[in-house]
């Protein structure tokens, strides 16, 4: 079931186009930075700072920082939105349901493949950035400046040997995937509610926008830790590059994302199991 679905998705041109954009943007970013400002320090998240040319490992950090604002959630939303609404838009959903398979299994297979593609998008972006970075700036130890603990008298710098930097990057990717989980689940829910993939993508991107806008309203700070998409949550993966790693925020964020994801996926399942499929 999953393999059928996977085959169908990877024969789609839109999937390859999305992944190609995910691979191209970091490469382009590396080229632009390499040509115009390799020796400048770039901000990563709220508190990190790296000097690009010091190591090839800086590029994945810069690319993740830039793309996690919009491009990665967009890619995730596209894959999740395609799942059900894509079939409905093609008019093939009802024929799909004629197969002697329960709706739950179909939805699970669709969700699994969309999730795999989303993971692939995140991995593509960071691997492309890593490859471009290593090519441009070399396999060297990664030095990260921790601005939160830096004062005029003390420079809080951590240096990771290349192997450790790669390990930390892997850890950061896990956080990144966790942080886009609620967007993914919301897009999947919308995908079962509408027959137009575009609406589902727009809605999922909209969730991020509304949540981020509410997060930035003075006076509504109380809401901050409970919103699905926030500036703080988006920058959370950078904690993997600080020493010592602060796990308290991560646990809270992971729980929150798990709750939102479970709620949205549950709603999607309820809806899909009961919906009248007319397309």
């Amino acid at each position, binding site marked *: 079931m999953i393999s059928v679905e996977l085959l169908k998705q990877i024969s789609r041109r839109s999937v390859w186009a999305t992944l190609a954009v995910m691979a191209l943007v970091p490469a382009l*970013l590396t080229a*632009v*930075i390499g040509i*115009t*400002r390799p020796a*400048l320090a*770039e*901000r990563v998240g709220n508190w990190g700072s790296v000097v*690009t040319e010091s190591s090839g490992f800086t590029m994945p950090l*810069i690319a993740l*920082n*830039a793309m996690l*604002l*919009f*491009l990665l959630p967009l890619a995730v939303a596209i894959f999740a939105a395609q799942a059900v609404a894509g079939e409905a838009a093609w008019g093939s959903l009802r024929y799909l349901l004629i197969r002697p398979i329960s709706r739950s299994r179909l939805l699970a297979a669709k969700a699994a493949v969309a999730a795999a593609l989303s993971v692939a998008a995140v991995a593509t972006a960071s691997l492309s950035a890593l490859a471009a970075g290593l090519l441009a700036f070399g396999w060297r130890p990664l030095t990260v400046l921790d601005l939160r603990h830096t004062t005029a008298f003390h420079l809080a710098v951590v240096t990771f040997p290349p192997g450790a930097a790669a390990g930390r990057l892997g850890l950061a990717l896990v956080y990144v995937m966790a942080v886009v989980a609620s967007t993914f689940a919301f897009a999947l829910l919308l995908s079962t509610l509408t027959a137009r993939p*575009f*609406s589902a993508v*727009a809605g999922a*991107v*909209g969730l991020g*926008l*509304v949540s*981020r*806008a509410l997060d*930035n*309203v*003075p*006076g*509504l*700070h*109380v809401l901050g830790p409970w919103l699905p998409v926030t500036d703080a949550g988006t920058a959370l993966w950078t904690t993997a590059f600080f020493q010592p790693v602060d796990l308290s925020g991560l646990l809270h964020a992971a729980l929150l994302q798990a709750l939102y994801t479970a709620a949205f996926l549950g709603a999607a399942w309820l809806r899909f199991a009961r919906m009248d499929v007319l397309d």
Partner: protein
Amino acid sequence: MIRVELAKQLTRPRTYLTFLALTAFALALAVALSATGPGRVERVGDIPLLLVPRTSMFTLPLVALSSTMKFFLPLAVSVFAGEALAGEAAWGSLRYALARGASRSRFLGSKAAVAALFSIAAVVLVPVTAAAAGLVAYGWHALPVADGSASTPLRLALVSFDPGQALGRLGLATAYVAAGMSSIFAFAFFLSAVSSRPLVAVAGGVGLTILSRVLNVDYLPGVAVLNGYMPNNDVDLWQHLFQQPVESAGMLHFLVLQAVYSATFLALAWWWFLRKDVLE
């Protein structure tokens, strides 16, 4: 022609829902600020301006404007502009509207005028509601603003505006934000002429603000050249009006930029709409 269009839009629930949502947002903000600590210092914008909500009624409109200008106001403006033509097309009434004995240019003009009127009303509504709530909650007092960029731990760069002056500057700020929405308005209106689905036009207008923000040097190093030419980045410069002395150079540049963007997109919309095969 304009009157007909105005009457039509005024009967739409969507119009009222948009206004209602903006009003509710401003009121919720006022309530949240009063409930969570009106005596605390709030940082507003990138400068930042430091305000204590309790001191004056004018703190609320400042907070409301700066928290809506980057997403909720662009959304409202995109809704009005995006609905204008694509809304008719989606209803299937566009070809009948064109069958009337009015030229397409006039039709387009009245659509744009009414949508622009509603957009301006949306922008004005937010600070007005917030100011009204502020008047009830905190009263007609002079507005003290500390300039966070000029302040040091030892010295607070505090300016106080008396109520009349604060009101005048608030008016200017609102006008600036309204002008700052014009590129988004024009782009959504253009998409509305091209597409027959309002959602596409609305998402496009909002998408332009996101694109503008993503292509910002804060997020994407290496695009510093573009920074002064993005359609929506400098919409927050009105906050400089509450500094002393006012830095107005960037604001003027932004207003010219808005005029160029709006003229381009509106002209494109007009060009497209005059030649369009209207099938819906």
